[in-house]
């Protein structure tokens, strides 16, 4: 019936049928998804690996130090003759730096995002966004020296009581480091608000600022908040900047002018330090690492919850 049709110089369907008979394997269709699933599973294995890595030494640590002391103690003196292991000073140190970073990065980052998405021309945006992303790509060790050798001395001219090691300088620098994360991700969120929404608002006589603030920002809120939380978790996990410019004095206070120590900086201190293998100090870095892991996990859950809760339907 089909062959009854026009004269064909080539019978492609016949050729296709021939190739089929030769059995061009269907195997790939079956194997490929399995292989791909395995690659996807690597990320899960990594998480399992992290927990596995941390859990044994952490358990050993809590065999030596009471869990209660750890989470409520306000003294972190692992190297003292009579050591104490209250993690709160390290947590406070981390939060001080993170807090300052957020205070710097959120208003600036949002302003940049709004400028790029609502005011700047396409050309300017395409130029500035990658340049700003360089800020996120600067190695943290570079930032660390910058903070220690440039920012701190500068700040000391303004605040004479500022010590060499303090929370302020690394906080500001981490703020600059996470600024592109907030700016870039928020800009994505703002830009993905449909233009129809802006047109609707402009059509009613709004100025650009009103459109940005009253229509676009609320519509992109979930993305913006998620970017902030993500940036916060980067600030919490930041290591080299605080190691170099924050100091190594875990103190339980809210002073930002004096030396601090963060959870990450503690791990670096011990990793490059003198503490003997098998000592409580050795195990403590795993406990602190685990605490960090829990912190970032929580941040992530919060981010997920935020994007669900504030997701706008349009």
């Amino acid at each position, binding site marked *: 019936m089909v062959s009854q049709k026009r004269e064909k110089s080539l019978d492609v369907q016949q050729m296709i049928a021939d190739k089929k008979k030769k059995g061009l394997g269907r195997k790939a269709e079956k194997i490929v998804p399995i292989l791909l699933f395995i690659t996807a599973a690597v990320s899960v294995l990594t998480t399992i690996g992290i927990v596995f890595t941390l859990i044994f030494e952490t358990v050993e640590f809590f065999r030596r130090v009471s869990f209660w002391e750890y989470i409520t103690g306000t003294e972190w003196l692992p190297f003292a003759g009579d050591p104490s292991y209250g993690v709160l000073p390290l947590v406070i140190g981390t939060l001080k730096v993170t807090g300052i970073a957020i205070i710097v990065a959120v208003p600036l980052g949002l302003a940049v995002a709004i400028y790029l998405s609502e005011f700047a*021309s396409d050309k300017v945006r395409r130029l500035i966004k990658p340049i700003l992303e360089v800020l996120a790509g600067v190695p943290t060790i570079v930032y660390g020296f910058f903070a220690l050798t440039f920012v701190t001395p500068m700040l000391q001219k303004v605040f004479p009581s500022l010590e060499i090691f303090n929370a302020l300088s690394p906080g500001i620098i981490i703020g600059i480091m996470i600024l592109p994360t907030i700016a870039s991700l928020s800009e994505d969120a703002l830009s993905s608000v449909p233009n*129809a929404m802006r047109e*609707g608002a402009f059509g009613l006589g709004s100025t650009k600022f*009103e459109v940005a603030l009253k*229509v676009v920002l609320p519509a992109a809120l979930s993305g913006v908040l998620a970017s902030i939380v993500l940036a916060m978790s980067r600030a919490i996990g930041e290591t080299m900047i605080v190691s170099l410019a924050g100091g190594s004095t875990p103190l339980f206070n809210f002073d930002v002018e004096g030396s601090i120590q963060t959870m990450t900086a503690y791990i670096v201190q011990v990793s490059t330090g003198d503490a003997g293998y098998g000592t409580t100090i050795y195990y403590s870095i795993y406990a602190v690492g685990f605490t960090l892991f829990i912190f970032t996990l929580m941040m992530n859950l919060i981010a997920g919850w935020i994007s669900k809760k504030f997701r706008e*339907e349009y």
Partner: protein
Amino acid sequence: MQVLKNKQRENVYETNQLNLWYGNNHALKDINLNIQENNVTAIIGPSGCGKSTYLKTLNRMVELVPGVRTTGEINYRQHNILDKGYSVEELRTKVGMVFQKPNPFPKSIYDNIAYGPRIHGIKNKKVLDQIVEQSLRGAAIWDEVKDRLHDNAYGLSGGQQQRVCIARCLAIEPDVILMDEPTSALDPISTLKVEELVQELKENYSIIIVTHNMQQAARISDKTAFFLNGEVIEFDTTDKIFSNPTDKRTEDYVSGRFG
């Protein structure tokens, strides 16, 4: 009497030698078009002929596209709106716009309607309540939404959303309403409702409507402009355009030979 009234109608818009380019794309060519008040003016033409572009020029919304250039003039109530000094925000409070796809803000119905008045400085709760009700009534949707004013507008059906958008536009009491294919995303019944609404609104507003549905243009408009490739081929009373067009291309188009 009807004839008399027609004679008295003033032009809301007078377009003289309007040209518009998107970069190098010459999208509008030497447009001359006068639009009367309290009338429904339909703009028809095949896809890409410049209908939306022209409509968006009337409230300068087209400027949101980067790289747009215009020459010529558009006088709205005797003022050339293409003048640099002309305040677009003011223009747009006088000229409302309804879009092809319903585009309510992701806020409550109430906040959608109150948005315009609010940005224009009306804060008084009582007044806002009154504006919201009046606008929703004006858009023939009050009864359907009065019990859920504080629900998100995205919970409504497409046809309802479109009428909320019309209400939002009425809330700033514009002089002119621009509509860009306002029913093309709607089902037949919603379409009918919007068409009826347009008929009512023209008592108080001047309406310019872009449509790809020729029967719709024939049904609801007083005058019709036929665009092709960025030019106005013919502009006349709707009767004339559909029953006895002057230009062969108009005839081909309205009889469905292309587009």
